[in-house]
């Protein structure tokens, strides 16, 4: 099933970008741009093969916005920030949301029922609105946390304790906004699956066996209920590479999302092309990861191979 996606994905953003090239770029600039970025061919197909050729050599072209940096180096400098911030936030959100979902299902009929409407509210809030409010409250009014940037301007990126601590310090607020706004999705998915699973005979039997509540909840109920969430989690890990555009804009975080936004603003198609390629590769990779994880976690899928 998933093998179809890699075949299709890389073509798509390129098509988009080729259309963009012919429609939007200022005509006077086209000639020079084409020369500079290896697009002298007028035929779309030839351009495409050209592109594929340089792709094989690991050459993604040069960025227009960050001229004369190569696309590879622009992405290379943005990627670690995004993967660090968004990746870790996504993992925290998944773990926390899933745990809360387990508890909400296990202790149904108690105060945990109110977790649902509360987190749903945060899920429905426009992300940037929530983020700006938190920035205003914690970053400006209370001045507890830095409101923007990835690290203090007084330090230079290096693997020193001081730098890492300022980096973590700067990551708290953006990470918090991501977690708050995304946790409801995981919570709800896990809770609903968990509630359904709790009605299964094997959970009743586990209880009848006199196992500890912990063992029934984890090995029997949660272990089965989490399976459908795995695919979603892997997919969202793939999306991490695309960055969180709004987060990175609001916090002026030097990640992929911010770069992508700039690329779109500046019609920087080699950069967009490169970014979309990386994103699609990541999503395809994540899908593969999901398949592998599924096989590891669900013995029933192992039989087919």
């Amino acid at each position, binding site marked *: *099933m998933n093998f179809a996606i890699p075949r299709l994905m890389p073509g798509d953003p390129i098509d988009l970008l080729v259309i963009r090239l012919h429609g939007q770029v200022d005509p006077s600039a086209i000639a020079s741009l084409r020369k500079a970025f290896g697009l002298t061919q007028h035929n779309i197909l030839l351009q495409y093969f050209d592109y594929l050729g340089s792709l094989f050599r690991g050459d993604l072209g040069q960025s227009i916005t960050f001229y004369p940096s190569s696309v590879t180096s622009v992405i290379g400098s943005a990627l670690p920030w995004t993967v660090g911030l968004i990746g870790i936030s996504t993992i925290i959100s998944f773990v926390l949301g899933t745990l809360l979902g387990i508890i909400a299902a296990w202790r149904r009929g108690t105060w945990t029922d109110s977790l649902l409407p509360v987190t749903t509210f945060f899920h429905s809030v426009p992300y940037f609105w929530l983020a700006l409010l938190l920035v205003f409250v914690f970053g400006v009014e209370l001045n507890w946390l830095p409101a923007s940037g990835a690290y203090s301007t007084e330090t230079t990126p290096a693997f020193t304790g001081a730098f890492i601590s300022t980096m973590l310090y700067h990551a708290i607020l953006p990470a918090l906004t991501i977690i708050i706004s995304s946790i409801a999705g995981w919570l709800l998915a896990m809770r609903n699956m968990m509630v359904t699973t709790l009605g299964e005979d094997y959970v009743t039997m586990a209880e009848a066996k006199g196992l500890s509540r912990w063992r029934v909840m984890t090995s029997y109920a949660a272990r*089965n209920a989490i399976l459908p969430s795995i695919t979603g989690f892997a997919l969202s890990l793939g999306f991490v590479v695309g960055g969180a555009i709004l987060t990175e804009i609001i916090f002026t975080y030097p990640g992929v999302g911010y770069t992508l936004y700039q690329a779109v603003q500046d019609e920087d198609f080699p950069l967009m092309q490169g970014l979309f390629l990386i994103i699609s590769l990541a999503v395809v990779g994540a899908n593969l990861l999901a398949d592998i994880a599924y096989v590891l976690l669900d013995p029933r899928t192992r039989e087919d191979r």
Partner: protein
Amino acid sequence: MRLPLSRKVVVGLCLVAFFVLLSLIGPLFMHTDPQATGPDVLQAPSCRHLLGTTQTGEDVLAQLINGGRVSLGVGALAACVATVLSVTIGLISGYARGAVDGVLSIITSVFLVIPALPLLIVLAGYLPNKGIESVAIVISVTAWASGARVIRAQTLSVRRRDYIEAARASGERGHRIIFAEILPNEITLIAASFLSSVVVGILAEAGLSFLGLGSLTTVSWGSMLYYAQNAQALLAGAWWWFIPPGLAIALVGTGLALINFGIDEYANPRLRGIRRKMPPSPPTPAAAAEVAGDAVLSIRGLSVDYLTDADPVHAVADVDLTLHRGEMLGIAGESGSGKSTLANAVARLLRPPAMVTAGSVRYQPRSGADPVDVLGLDSAALRAFRWADLAIVFQSAMNSLNPVLTIGAQFDDVLRAHRRDMSAIDRRKRAATLLERVGIPGERLRSYPHELSGGMRQRAAIAIALVLDPDVIIMDEPTTALDVVVQREILQEILQLRQDYGFAVIFITHDLTLLLEICDTIAIMYGGRVVESGTAAELHAGPMHPYTRGLLDSAPRLRGDLRALHDIPGAPPDLSALPAGCAFHDRCSYAFDSCVDTAPPLLDRSGRRVACLLHDSALRPEPVPEPVRGRP
């Protein structure tokens, strides 16, 4: 069909209705032009401007009301287009299958894996005019894929159902099947996907506007936020400008999500809320029910209610049963007779809203120690009691074995929980011994349940039940899901094991003839009550209750003479609306006047019990009525 109007749904409906009405009717009363600038710049809320003014003196309330029209409109329009797209593609894809499905699935997957916001930004860049309708269309293009996938999956599963296959076989036209047979099955899914698309649409509009890519000349909640942020409204202290539009979006979104919870609960009843309510009267503590003779389990006056919004439903009412050591007690009854609820009550496995309201269950340990009040055990004592003294074999081992753990692990966790000092090797040996005892090679401990055949799974479940050598095993329809040959083998196995290990069995089934062959004593349940009990031989020789007779007549014999089969007329009773008098009277061909209003007591004739007025000499008419519906 009762719609689940839970509190969540009501709150959700109110929230959504409030904002819809506000944006529909609001402009009729609010004559201030939302884009009229004025001299009152950045005013805090006051009587003239209920929500204050913006940097250019526009009235925030007027903007909020008019912006609501646009934002909700964009959300609804985007959701309509997205839903039409996803339903069309999902239905065609799931119904046509084959190559069409292949192509459409790939397209769906591609849209699913492209991150929505970048795609939205790129697409928005191409919009020839940034009218609000084109923004909605662009949003719908990015929002349809997940719905299409869900609907495709549902169509695939509905398509496999018998009545669809029948419609196809009878040559019904494809579009008729899709619209008349399949679509109605997916209404809840479609509604849920529509509502969540509305939320996605509203949020996407806000996001686009915030990035300056939306229709900024139109007042919407998104463009309000854009201008508020550009003017640094929060830093300027103008919270009344920044907070309301975001809050409005969040509340509408929450409202729609709450309605969606209701739809989920409607489609999946397990999700419905449960109320932890105390029973009207606490169970009476184990009365003077002394454990008679060699009884291992005595059930006295046991009643179970399902606590519903209306009156409690009496699923089990005043049941007395005694299980003797090593005895095989059969309980027979139709579905809904309360037999499984009774078993779950004895094993303390009832889930809310089911609750024991009266009675006692006493267990007499083999060692001769004091009898145990099963219903009164605290959670630690209950855990120790479970499986060690009373084990269960469920109807379908496919469902009762954990699919992600090996058979061995499911032996092992019982032993680890109950025999803490047992070594891993000993635990493994014990599991292998038992598995081999039921005819499965010991190396199958490493297998997962799905790798065993149906019969082997049920054998494994029986072996797991034996692992702690319990005194009592409840078997709830243990062979119903199996074919007749395997069923026979397993019954023989159970009888043999009972001889070797000496456990007593409560065997629950709807198949009375089966019980007659294997059980010592049998109890017949109807409408939550025991209506007849006696030894298997007594019941076989002379069933006293018309219902028992009906059960015997309605079952085909495996051996013996060929006779006409008779079904019991009517359907099993609805426990929430049991008829007055004898619960069986409306299906009984012997019923007479008193049966309509007099509940028959369970008469005890030296161990042989029956609850039927035909055997009540005071009420019974003379001569005994003949069956009115031409019984043999």
